[in-house]
């Protein structure tokens, strides 16, 4: 940075790095978003007596596969973080790459699922259940996409040989976000698919 560009303040009066603090507050707000949406879904499902009929049209196996994919990606994310702690730059890069690949796989499977439902005539218009289905899983998928983009940005920074110190912390932050998105799915999957 030039002397007159960003004056990046570095201090941390609380002892927690600023980036981490920011991620935690962001996730707190996100929790309210997903919490609100899932809570409303549960209330409606209860009021409607379970929605077993429409839920039976869902591709539980695709979703179960996706659960596995996402859980695995959380594991690879943990490995990336571990590699980062061990100062192993190459391994970090590798594990991040795998995580990103799994994220893309999740999105691909999701796209197959959507296409199939849509072709079968189930759209948000069909009923309230389908509105929730597309709304909830769509918002979640958008978050996965956001995570993939963050991983790509991180990968580019690493590949370009940006100073290791500057990138290291970001591995942890993206990791926190990634785990959060994973946890949301852990709630979403049984609530939506396993009615």
């Amino acid at each position, binding site marked *: 940075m030039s002397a*007159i*560009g*960003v*004056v*990046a*303040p570095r*201090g*941390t*009066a*609380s002892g*927690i790095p*600023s980036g981490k*603090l*920011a991620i935690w*507050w*962001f996730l*707190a*707000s*996100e*929790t*309210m*978003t*997903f*919490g*609100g*949406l899932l809570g*409303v879904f549960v209330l*409606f499902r209860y009021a*409607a007596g379970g929605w077993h009929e429409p839920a039976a049209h869902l591709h539980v196996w695709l979703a179960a596969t996706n659960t596995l994919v996402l859980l695995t990606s959380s594991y690879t994310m943990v490995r990336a973080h571990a590699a980062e702690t061990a100062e192993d730059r190459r391994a970090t890069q590798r594990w991040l790459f795998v995580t990103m690949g799994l994220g893309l796989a999740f999105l691909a499977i999701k796209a197959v699922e959507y296409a199939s439902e849509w072709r079968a005539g189930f*759209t*948000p*218009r069909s*009923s*309230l259940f*389908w*509105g*929730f289905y*597309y*709304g909830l899983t769509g*918002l979640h998928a958008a978050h996965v996409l956001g995570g993939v983009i963050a991983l790509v940005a991180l990968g580019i920074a690493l590949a370009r040989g940006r100073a290791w110190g500057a990138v290291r912390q970001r591995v942890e932050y993206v990791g926190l976000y990634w785990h959060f998105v994973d946890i949301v799915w852990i709630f979403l999957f049984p609530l939506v698919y396993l009615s």
Partner: protein
Amino acid sequence: MSDVAAAAVHEPALGFWRGYVFSVDHKTIGKQYLAMAMVMALLGGATAYVMRWQLAWPDTAVPLAGWLPEQMAYQGIIDPAFYNQLVTMHGTIMIFFVAMPLLLGAFGNFLVPLMVGAPDMAFPRLNMLSFWTFFVASVVLLTSFVVPAGAASGGWTMYPPLSARASYTGVEWGINLWLIAVALEFASFLMGGINLVVTTINLRAPGLSFFRLPLMVWMELIAAILFLLSVGPLIAGVLMLFLDRVAGASFFVPQEGDPLLWQHLFWFFGHPEVYVLLLPGVGAVLEILPVFSRKPVFGYRPIVWSTIVAGVLSFVVWAHHMFISGIDPRLASPFSVTTILISVPFAIILFAMIATLWRGAISFATPMLWAIGFIATFLIGGLTGIYVGAAALDIYFHDTYFVVAHFHYALFPSVIFGGFAGLYFWYPKMFGRMLSERLGQLHFWLTFVTFNAVFLPMFALGFGGHMRRIADPTAYTFLQPLMPLHRAATWATIALLLSQLPFLVNFLVSLRRGPIAGANPWRAATLEWSAASPPPHGNFAVLPTVYRGPYEYSAPGAPDDVCPQDAPPSTREVRAS
């Protein structure tokens, strides 16, 4: 703007685009928010003027509005559908595009880093991104005025099913754009809010413990946290409403969906939001009172704790907007209890403000007038909140002008009085020059008188049972006797709008011509006053160290009646402690 010129003195190397447009400096970003808020305030005022005219002299041509396209007004005569758009856009503009950018955007950005002794916000680039997101949101909102069928018309609360199907309003794109604009605005203030919170927690100067923070910083912090924690469910709600509109989903439309769900999501956010709009104004007043009475704030800690208690309570009162919406009537009285309970912490805060004046040495510079005016008028807004908080009385007052009067008496003091208090107080720090006292005092007195003249009559309209959001009161016989009040309020509105001219002149002329301010023109103790006016990029020549609380005025035995937070302790003080 000529702050461009003023700042250029400090930043010769940055060039126009990086210096003033895509700047990452929190002070420039704060000023950008301020400029946006002022422009939007003029628009909010213009919509108010057109509405007021229509209410006082229904179906007569609004002076100066003849140029409006026919879809809105035929030869200046307001169409009822356009009236609904005006109400909606007036509320939306004032809350989301004036109050938020002014109180959190401008004050939060400009002041918090300076007051905690930091060189900038924790994330300068995120800060720039949040401003430009806000800018796009504003453009989207304004675009909705000119799309076919016009702007959103569901009220600023956008209740479905009216808002959920285009056929109910005839407005197709207007409401879609409204939803997009509001979503962008939320994204912007999420980024900005996180930045404010992290900056406050992490970038405090050495020695600046939480209980030495200026109260303005506390208020911005708590406001930002309230926003962060309350907006999530409404983001979900906006997404659902958007799906209802564009994908034909039915979250808020029977048979399957539930219209009341939106109201829960909206007000779960909406009530904390009104405190988001209140607290920064309270903070500005609490900075100004000690400076112009040369006394410490009375009861610093009780104020902080009261604010936190009010903040927590604000999450459990939302159904007071829904007493007669069709929710289970057994829920009403419990929500009345939580609602009315909030009077306790706010009473403590108001009493502490007044006790700060007690035995002071008060001078009446313009910022102080606005601060006192805030206390005098907000009290009315607060007390009338109790009327509508009592569920049984709200049966009668709900959706009448009593509510309109209540919330203007709450919002106008916190946003406009608090905003002007802060602006007159920190203008020297922002632009390095003093405003004219004479014009400032004139502006205050004119605004104070005309503001009351606009909104006091509205209480009486509410007593008369006058519904809000109706375009033509003469449609009802029982409202006929109230027409003189409408006319009085409209004349007063015109006077109120004209009363802003001294301010605009003062603001613009002083940018160039005002006397040079110097670092600390008010002889105040908080950190922002030990930076130059305006502060250079990076703020402080040497990052300050803090030795004491923010309001050390007239300490016994001290030679001077102010002891800045970063002045090293004298030998005597060291011995005493």
